[in-house]
C-alpha cells in the first residue's frame, strides 16, 4: 500500500483551515446570516399563478395595496411566487393579500402556503438551536474521551466546529436563507463529520497499538492512507444522493441540500486534515493509547 504523506502538508492545511475559518467568521460578522422567517419573524406567502407571473406587476400591486417592504421573488417555476413581508401582522392578511393579487391579475391565483411567525419565537429558536449544538458537542466529546482518549475528543470536536463555522460562513457569503431546515442540515453535518472523523481516529488508535515502532506522524499518515479509499467512497455516495435531493427535491428542501453538500465536502476534508492535525499538535503518542488495557484486550479478541 502506498503511504501518502498527508501530514507533510499539515502546516499548509492548517493555514488553509485558519484562512477559511477567518473568512467565514469575517463574513458572519460583517454580512451576518440571511436569517429566514423562522428567526426574524414576519409573514411569508407562496402563491401559484395559473399563468406565468409578472413579478414587477405583483410588486406594484402590493405597494399600491399598502403592503410596504414586500419582497417578491419567483420560487422554482415562473408561476410560483414567494412574497415576504416584514413584521406587522393582521389576522386576515394572507387572504386579503390573495384577494388583492387575484383582483389585479387576469388568471387564477392559488394560495399554496402562508406562514406567520412572531419574532419572539425567533429569539427562542436561536437560543434553542445554539443550546442543542453545544449539548451535542459536549456529549460527543465525553463519549470519545471515554471510548478513545481525551486528545481524540478534542480533535473530533475541533473538526466539528471547523465544519460548522465554514458551512455557516458559506451561507453568509452566498447569502442563502438560513431557516430551520438549514439548521437541521447543519446538525446533520455534525453527525456526518463525526462519523468520518471517528473512522479515521479508530484506525489511528489501531495502528498506534499495532505499529509499535512507528513515529506518530508516520502512524497518522499510514492510517489516513489506509482509510482514504473508504473516506472517498462514502463521501461520494452521500454526495450523489444529496445531489439528487438538490436537483429533484424541490425548492423547499433546496437550502437543506446545499448546506449538506457543502458540509459533507468540508467534513471529508476535515476528517483527513483537521482532526489528525490537532492530534499531532497535541503530541499524541502511543503511550496515550496504552492506558486502557481492557479495551486493548477486547480488540485482540475480535481478531481471528
Amino acid at each position, binding site marked *: 500500500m502506498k503511504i501518502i504523506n498527508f501530514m507533510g502538508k499539515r502546516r499548509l492545511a492548517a493555514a488553509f483551515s485558519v484562512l477559511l475559518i477567518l473568512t467565514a467568521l469575517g463574513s458572519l460578522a460583517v454580512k451576518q446570516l440571511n436569517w429566514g422567517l423562522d428567526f426574524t419573524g414576519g409573514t411569508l406567502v407562496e402563491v401559484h399563478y395559473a399563468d406565468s407571473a409578472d413579478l414587477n406587476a405583483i410588486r406594484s400591486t402590493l405597494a399600491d395595496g399598502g403592503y410596504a417592504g414586500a419582497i417578491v421573488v419567483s420560487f422554482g417555476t415562473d408561476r410560483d411566487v414567494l412574497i415576504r413581508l416584514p413584521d406587522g401582522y393582521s389576522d386576515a392578511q394572507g387572504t386579503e393579500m390573495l384577494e388583492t393579487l387575484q383582483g389585479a391579475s387576469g388568471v387564477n391565483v392559488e394560495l399554496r*402556503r402562508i406562514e406567520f*411567525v412572531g419574532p419572539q419565537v425567533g429569539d427562542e429558536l436561536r437560543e434553542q438551536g445554539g443550546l442543542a449544538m453545544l449539548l451535542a458537542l459536549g456529549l460527543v466529546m465525553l463519549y470519545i474521551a471515554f471510548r478513545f482518549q481525551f486528545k481524540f475528543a478534542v480533535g473530533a470536536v475541533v473538526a466539528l466546529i471547523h465544519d460548522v463555522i465554514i458551512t455557516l460562513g458559506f451561507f453568509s457569503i452566498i447569502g442563502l436563507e438560513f431557516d430551520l431546515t438549514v439548521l437541521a442540515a447543519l446538525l446533520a453535518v455534525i453527525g456526518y463529520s463525526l*462519523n468520518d472523523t*471517528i473512522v479515521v481516529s479508530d484506525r489511528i488508535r489501531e495502528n498506534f497499538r499495532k505499529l509499535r515502532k512507528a513515529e506518530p506522524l508516520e502512524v497518522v499518515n499510514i492510517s489516513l492512507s489506509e482509510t482514504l479509499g473508504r473516506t472517498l467512497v462514502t463521501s461520494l455516495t452521500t454526495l450523489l*444522493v444529496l445531489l439528487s435531493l438538490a436537483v429533484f427535491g424541490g425548492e423547499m428542501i433546496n437550502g437543506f441540500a446545499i448546506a449538506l453538500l457543502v458540509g459533507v465536502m468540508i467534513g471529508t476534508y476535515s476528517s483527513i486534515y483537521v482532526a489528525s492535525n490537532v492530534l499531532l499538535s497535541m503530541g499524541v503518542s502511543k503511550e496515550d493509547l496504552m492506558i486502557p488495557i481492557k479495551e486493548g484486550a477486547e480488540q485482540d479478541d475480535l481478531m481471528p
Partner: protein
Amino acid sequence: MLNRYPIWKYLIVLIVVIGGALYASPNLYAPDPALQIAGESSGTMIDERLLSRATTALDDASIAHFGEIIEPGGRSALIRLEEQETQLRAQAVVSRALGDGYIIALNLAETTPDWLTGVGGQPMKLGLDLSGGVHFKLEVDTAAAIERRMEYYLNATKRSLREERIRGFVGLDGDRAVLGRFRSEDLREQARSLIADAFPELLLDRVDEEDEFLIFARMTDVTVDEIIDYSVSQNLTTLRNRVNELGVSEPLVQRQGRNRIVVELPGIQDTAEAKRILGKVANLEFRLVANADAPAAERQRFEYRSEDRQGATEYLERDVIITGERVSNAQASFDQNGRPNVQISLDSEGGTLMSRATRNNIKRRMGVLFIERKYRTRYEMDENGEEVAVKVPYDEKKLLTAPVIQSALGAQFQITGLDNPLESSELALMLRAGALAAPITFVEERTVGPSLGAENIRLGVKSVQYGLALVVLFMVLYYRVFGLCAVTALTANLVLLVAIMSLLGATLTLPGIAGIVLTVGMAVDANVLIFSRIREELGNGLSPQMAIHSGFERAVATILDANITTLIVAVILYAVGTGPVKGFAVTLSVGIITSMFTAIMGTRALVNLIYGGRRVETLAIGRIPKMGDAA
C-alpha cells in the same frame, strides 16, 4: 468452515425483513378522500336517515361516492369519494343538505386492509408540509394567570380579616405579594395565623416599622410554577375541546416548552374559522349577587348579556367563587316542572369552593358572568414618529343569569331560572367548551396548501428514487457482487426504516424525507468500511474466506463507534429540537439503528450465502490493492 451463519441467524434476518415489509406495506395503500360528518355539539347522534340524506344529495349532484359508514358510537359518519377534486364540492353539497348543526370536515380515509390493521399495521402519519393544513403556535399569558391568583388571595384575605373583625389595611405589593399593615403586633399576629391557615403555600414575612406592623404574604417560585403549569394544561384541555368542534381528523394539540401550545389541523384551509374557534377567549365566573347593604367598594354592577334583558343590571360581589375552568361537564335539560335548566359538574377543588361559598348563602342569588376578551385599537407614535395601531385587550363581562341558591351546592348542581331551552343549551355549551385559564395569543401560524403538500411528497419520493438509483449504480460498479449485497441490504434498510416509523406512529415531514435520503447516502458507509477492510486483507495476502471473516469482524468496532456518536447527536436533536429538526432527528436515529442491523447482519448473511462454507478462489469485490498501491 468459515463464514457460515447458523440457521437461526438467517432466520432472524429473514423474519426481520419480512416483518419490516409487512409493517411498511400499509403505506402502499393510498387513502381515499372522504367527508366526515359530525354533530356540532357532542350530544348529536348521526343516524342512517341523516346519512342517506347526505348520500342522496351527493347522488343528485352526481358526485361519485362509496363505503358510507357510521362510526361506532354514532358520533360521526364517513363518506368516501372517488376523486380528490370533488371533495370541496361534496362538502358544500352535503352541508347545504344537512343544514346547520353539523360539521362536515374533509378527511382522508385509510384503505389499509382489515387483516393488516388487525396485526397493528398502519401507514405513517404525514406532517402538515406533506398533507396540507394549518399549524398554530399559541402563547399562554401566564402573567395574567398569576395576576388573577393574586387577586384571589387579596380578596380572600380581606374577607376573612373582615369576618374576624381584624382591622388593618390590605393591598398588593408588587405582583407577587399581599401586604397587610396593622396598628398593633397583636393584630398582625392574628392576621398571620389566619393567612397561614388559609394559604399554607404562601411565604409570610414580618416587618416592623415605626408605628406600623407589616406582613408580606409572598407567592413562592414553586407556587408560581404550579400556577403556570396549571394554566397551560388547563388551556390545553380547553383547546382540545375546541379543536374537536372543528371536526378535524387527527388534530394535534401539544404543549411546547413552558408556556406554548402547538395546534396542528391537517386538511383545514379555512384559517379564519379555525382561529375564531381556537382564540375564542371566553371565561365564566360565579359570584354572589351583592346584598343591598353591601359597601360600594365590595360590589360591582354588570349588564345582562341577552337581548331580552337589554339594559337590566345587577350588583355582584367582587369576590369570585369559582371560574369556568373548574367546570368538568355541563348538560342542558329540564327539571320536574318542565323548566329548562343546566346540570353542572365541577372538579373536586371547584366542588369544595362552591360548597363553602353556598352553605351560608341559601336563598341568595348567584350570578353567572360571561367574560369575553376583546380588543380596542389605539394609535401610538413609534420611534420613527409614525403612527402605529396598537391593539389593547380588555375583558368584557356580562351577566348570563342570576338564579336563586336553593340549597348548599357541591360538585354537582343545577342552574335553574333560565328563560328558555335555547338559553340553557347555550349556557351548557359555553360551560362545556371550557374556558381558558389564561388568555392566549397567536405567535405563529403556518398554512400549507394541499396541492403543495402532494407536490412535496412527489418530489421527496422522486429524490429518494434517483438517489437510490445512483448509489446502486456506483456500488455495483465499484464492489461488484459485494456491491449487490450492500444494495440489497440498503433496500431492506429503507423498508425497515419505513416500517419502524409506521409502527412508532412517527410523523413524516419534509425534513424527515430529507433525513431518509441522507440515510441512504450514509448507510452504505458501514458496508464500505467492511468491504474496504476485506480488500485490504486480500491485499495483505489472506485467503478469500479469511478476508471476509476478518473484514467483517474488524470493521464492526469502528462501525459501532461511528454510529453511536452520530446517534448521540440525533437523540439530542430530538430532545431539544422542534418542528423540522425533530422530524429529521427521528428518521436519522431510526435510520442509524436499522442501517447498523442491515449492514452488519444483513449483508453478512447474503455474503455468507453466496461465498460461505466452500472453497473460493477469488472474490468479486472490485479492484484489490496490491502492496505498494493505494486502497
